[in-house]
């Protein structure tokens, strides 16, 4: 996993979910982050799209089940993992 990209995704998540960065990990998910509800999930997806200039398909939206999935998705879309 690209460490810089991971940090960027986590920073976006910290901002959207209003959680300190230190409290997040790649396994953080809607089940563990209180403010990660439907509305914030969509906000998170839109923020990723804007930050990385990518387009997230409906299938991708559903695949993001934790922050690790988000990082994996962004890497795949940007080719930054290579």
């Amino acid at each position, binding site marked *: 996993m690209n460490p810089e990209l991971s940090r960027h995704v986590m920073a976006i998540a910290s901002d959207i979910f209003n959680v300190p960065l230190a409290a997040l990990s790649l396994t953080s998910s809607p089940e563990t982050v209180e403010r990660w*509800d439907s509305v914030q999930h969509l906000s998170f997806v839109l923020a990723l799209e804007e930050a990385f200039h990518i387009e997230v398909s409906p299938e991708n*939206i*559903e695949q993001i089940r934790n922050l690790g999935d988000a990082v994996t998705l962004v890497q795949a879309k940007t080719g930054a993992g290579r």
Partner: protein
Amino acid sequence: MSIVIQPYERHHEDAVRAFNARLRAAGIGPDLVFYEQTHPEWLEPTCNSPLYNQYFVAVENGDVRGAYALKYERFHLRESGDYRVACYHHPLSEGIIDRRYSSVGGLMLRDALAREPMLYALGMGGDDRPLPKMLKVIGWPLASIPFYFHVVRPFRFLREMNVLRQSPLRCLLMDFSAFTGMGWLAISALQTAKRITTRIDKTIESATVDEFPASVEALWHSAKNEYAMTSVRDYDTLARLYPGEAKHLTRLCITRNASLIGWAVVGERRPSRKFGALRVGSIVDCWARPDDTLPVIHAAKECLIQQDMDLIVTNQSHTSWCEALSHSGFLTTASSFVFAPSRQHSATLKGDVSQFHITRANGDGLPRNF
């Protein structure tokens, strides 16, 4: 496991019932369940009407994890004529009760947009609820549609209006106002201060009809471009929305010198905890040229008073209708009736809601509230 959103079909019915059972078991509210029949009872698709409902379900391995509805209809823009839109309504997601499905709400919204980019949502209980918040996140503008009310029986209003009796102190104050007559005086003074003492022209008459007459078609065409945007209210649409067998609604035709100048649909709202034991009448829908709104509002109000309502309510967006309500002694307060067009839809709209004609009949409120 992936979620697929598809039209609701008969083989989904058991899964929808199971979905509803999970929602009920979580105690989120008895009304927050999806339709258990595939074919809409209200506005079922027919081969020749542009006005119909269609339901969709989000399915994961045979289980329903969400559902939503689209009410397809036609709107009219002054600038460019009629066009197709859909009202996004009744979205329900398992994410409400199981965080693992937090993505379903957004998935359904994007699916709806892919099916029909010209969408709107209406009502929603206020802009601080989850759906309008989600719409705002994706860039839909939100606008409140003004709410108006007229208290017919102040004593009963003060005693029964539960939403105002939220604390022991408030209950005490409202009971005091009711029993001393002070509340009656205050309400009457407010409503009278706003009312213009207008003698309704003797050439104007109002009549109840079982079905709207063919002359509503000409009235539609003569008035439609007086509004920057409105939903189509031609004869065929009215026949579909307010068929003769819908006896719970009253149709009024208002004429001047025997020529139709406007119409209104009024009805009693279903009982709700918010209104206690009050009988609440609503001006559901209406149509006229902006210059003729006052006699239409007057007729609608008088009809509901004759039907023994304690309180009359309505939501109207256009300035002319709002002014007519004010001049008829209606008061206004905070509205939770929100209009949100999708970004593509919003880009076509010129002006703001005060130039559009949006009423309680728009959206999905007709069968839900009456």
